[in-house]
């Protein structure tokens, strides 16, 4: 990093153009000392108590010869003397105050007075809610987030590597991994990709997520981004790498597989039978949500022979006054649901709820009454909308909502064949995808029988003691499985 300023004077001169750049001159003995700072970045009270007051008190009984003298007085640990203009510039913008002894001194003292105002203290995991389990989420501050992780991962092996990204924002981005677990290849790839990013302002880790992804021509998220602490810690202990960006409450973990997006932290807090059941429900929900309306279009447009004879009459009855072909009927309802979702996401929560009721009940009911759609389709579309929201990771549920549209169009063109062309494209696309260089649909292709234990189902903790091999961890055993206690469950304990 190079600075465009030759000396401190030039830097100060430019900075003075901003109204929040303040200069305080205090008299220490006979010496006039200047303090420069951005009032918006520092804690004024802190400066008053721990810098100015201390300096004034100490200067009463001792004389200042050199700037080194002052350094020893200040009761703040982050104090530094430097004459490097680049350091001064960057630290000034991070909430440090510059203490200059004489005018035109190049050497000056930097005191950390940064204030974290404007940040949330804590965050409930509202967007990735779970009934059971901790509700601690990340906030917009890097140090707090790393602290949160350290509290749960109490080992010195947790390594944080900091990189500065963003030409204008100079955002601190940290790569987090567990030494001796995570494969170095993944860390290096990630580090290389992060350092190669050339972008002005890093607003959120979701931006980084897209920039470091292996393939940008895909609707699928290639990294999991989550606000849940337990989730990140679980990924780290499995051998994944996490990326935290300052100012973002979401942490990105990778390399991810498709199934990671359908895993909820709650699966691990519930007994494994229930956890597996809910996972299967979620996956079924996704499949249903993607293909239900397409199947309706295909069957009612082309393959009406497929409808069982008992279902035929209710279907005809519900569709008899509908003037549109099934394709437009489906498109009309699907787009209505998309409007509702989008409006609900943009509006404040309270209005959003009202809107849901208005939209869902009034529009749906009226559309059937007006014979714009059949009520069987209304049920299907509403169900598939509901099913698409069972996906725990928001980014993935968006992807699924998007994918149904091409499939509906294909089914309107070629019926069942069209749907399977869609399935084929989808599957081949998924096979070709890679996350940090490792395959995306792992337990299915390449086939890894062992890893089925934690993908579609969540097996018991006795089986889950090994790290997934797809991540190529450096040590594969997480913990030793509890030896099965010999239980005499037979008749009256014999």
């Amino acid at each position, binding site marked *: 990093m190079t600075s465009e300023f030759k000396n401190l004077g030039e830097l100060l001169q430019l900075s003075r153009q901003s109204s929040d750049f303040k200069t305080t001159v205090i008299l220490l003995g006979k010496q006039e000392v200047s303090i420069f700072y951005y009032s918006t970045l520092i804690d004024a009270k802190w400066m008053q108590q721990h810098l100015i007051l201390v300096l004034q008190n100490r200067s009463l009984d001792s004389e200042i010869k050199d700037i080194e003298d002052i350094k020893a007085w200040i009761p703040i640990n982050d104090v530094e003397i430097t004459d490097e203009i680049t350091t001064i510039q960057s630290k000034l913008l991070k909430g440090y105050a510059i203490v200059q002894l004489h005018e035109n001194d190049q050497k000056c003292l930097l005191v950390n007075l940064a204030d974290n105002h404007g940040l949330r203290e804590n965050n409930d995991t509202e967007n990735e809610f779970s009934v059971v389990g901790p509700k601690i989420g990340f906030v917009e501050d890097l140090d707090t987030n790393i602290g949160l992780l350290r509290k749960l991962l109490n080992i010195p092996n947790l390594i944080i590597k900091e990189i500065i990204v963003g030409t204008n924002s100079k955002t601190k981005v940290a790569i987090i991994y567990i030494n001796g677990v995570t494969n170095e290849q993944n860390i290096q790839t990630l580090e290389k990709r992060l350092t190669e990013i050339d972008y002005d302002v890093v607003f959120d880790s979701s931006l980084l997520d897209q920039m470091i992804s292996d393939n940008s021509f895909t609707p699928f998220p290639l990294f999991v981004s989550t606000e849940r602490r337990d989730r990140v810690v679980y990924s780290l202990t499995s051998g994944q790498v996490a990326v935290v960006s300052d100012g973002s409450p979401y942490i990105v973990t990778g390399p991810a597989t498709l199934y990671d997006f359908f895993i909820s932290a709650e699966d691990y807090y519930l007994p494994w039978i229930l956890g597996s059941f809910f996972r299967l429900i979620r996956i079924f929900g996704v499949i249903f949500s993607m293909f239900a309306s397409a199947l309706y279009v295909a069957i009612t447009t082309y*393959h009406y*022979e497929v*409808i*069982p*004879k008992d279902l035929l009459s209710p279907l005809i009855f519900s569709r008899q006054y509908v003037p549109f072909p099934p394709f437009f009927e489906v498109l009309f309802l699907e787009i209505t649901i998309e409007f509702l979702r989008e409006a609900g996401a943009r509006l404040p929560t309270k209005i959003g709820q009202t809107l849901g009721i208005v939209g869902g009940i009034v529009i749906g009911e009226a559309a059937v009454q007006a014979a714009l759609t059949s009520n069987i389709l209304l049920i299907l579309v509403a169900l598939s909308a509901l099913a698409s929201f069972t996906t725990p990771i928001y980014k993935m549920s968006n992807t699924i909502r998007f994918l149904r549209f091409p499939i509906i169009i294909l089914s309107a063109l070629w*019926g069942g*064949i069209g749907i399977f*062309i869609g399935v084929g494209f989808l599957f081949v696309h998924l*096979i070709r995808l890679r996350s940090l260089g490792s395959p995306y649909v792992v337990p299915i292709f390449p086939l890894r029988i062992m890893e089925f234990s934690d993908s579609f189902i969540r097996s018991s903790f006795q089986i889950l003691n090994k790290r997934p091999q797809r991540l190529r961890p450096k040590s594969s055993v997480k913990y030793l499985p509890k030896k099965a206690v010999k239980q005499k469950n037979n008749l009256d304990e014999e």
Partner: protein
Amino acid sequence: MKNAVDEKYLISPFLIVPLMYVSMVGVGVLNFQRELAEHAGYNAYISVILVGISLHFIIWMIYKILSSNQAGLDITVINNACFGKIAGNIINLAIVLYFFFGAYIEYKAYIEVIRVWLFPAMKILPISVVLVSFIYYTVSGGFRTVTGLCFLGFLMTLIFIIPENLSLLPYLHPLNLMPLLNHSITDILLSSKSMLYQFLGFEALLLFYPFIKSPEKSQKWAHSMVFFVTLLYLMVLIVTFMYFSEGQLREISWPTLNMLKIIETPVFQRVEYLAISLWLLKNLSGICLSLWAACRGMKSVVLQIKPRMSLLAFLVGFLILECFLKDRSSFRWMAEFYSDVGLYFIYGYIPLMFIATQLRKTWNKG
């Protein structure tokens, strides 16, 4: 000599299972029964067994041919080594064309099924363009992607084909099979020839062999797949024979699909529509595998064309053939020609290569 394939493109030996499956089970499984019964009547099940046994020998020979070369190279290199540059490349070009036409016939046969069963009045060109772009997307993803699609096709049809046959059990007439042997050996051999046509496609092994990680481990899988697929054909055939009488079968073009008509589920009244749609993925994966083999073979023919270019050329060839080959008779002629060539390829060329490579091996040693 070129280098062997890079480690990261290899597939594990087990994955030869879906590859063998999709190449041996073609769209023919929907209608092979009728042609088989044409000569040997209801004794045709013997033909299936005969072809199955002979293919075990062929697979064994293929593995011997390919492992005779230390570096694990494909057939094109061995051709060049055995017959010299020019003659070797002519043979290679013939192999490439063989795979290309194999893919095209599979494709055309499936389009035929769609036409007859689903959309009699459908315009073929738009769906062809979509299918061709799908094939391009898959094959350009490399061998691993092709294998992945084959895996999906394998799973999808397998979970379908066995319950389908089991649910027909209540409607069968086992006595249809009697008498067990009343046809001449010539008839049975003629049926065997049409049975071999169904199996054609597995020769792609000659080209994808170097892509298998530790290929010698895959041999047992290859053999068990030949066994399994033979069993599968046998099962479908016997179920068909017990379901239809011989006279009935002669009148039916797609016996497997006709049998499906009787099955009713609470959600689906006519299961064959689902079957045909499901079959799409398996068929496309077979086509992709053959085309991949053709592209791979093209790479080593004189001109050193980039596989992507040859793939594009092949697919454009598909569309052009689609436009000009409109009548069924010329397609039938092409399929029969392909079947004849396949017969010589399997039972002529491969044993010949087997002897040649074994002789070369001993000659080199001595």
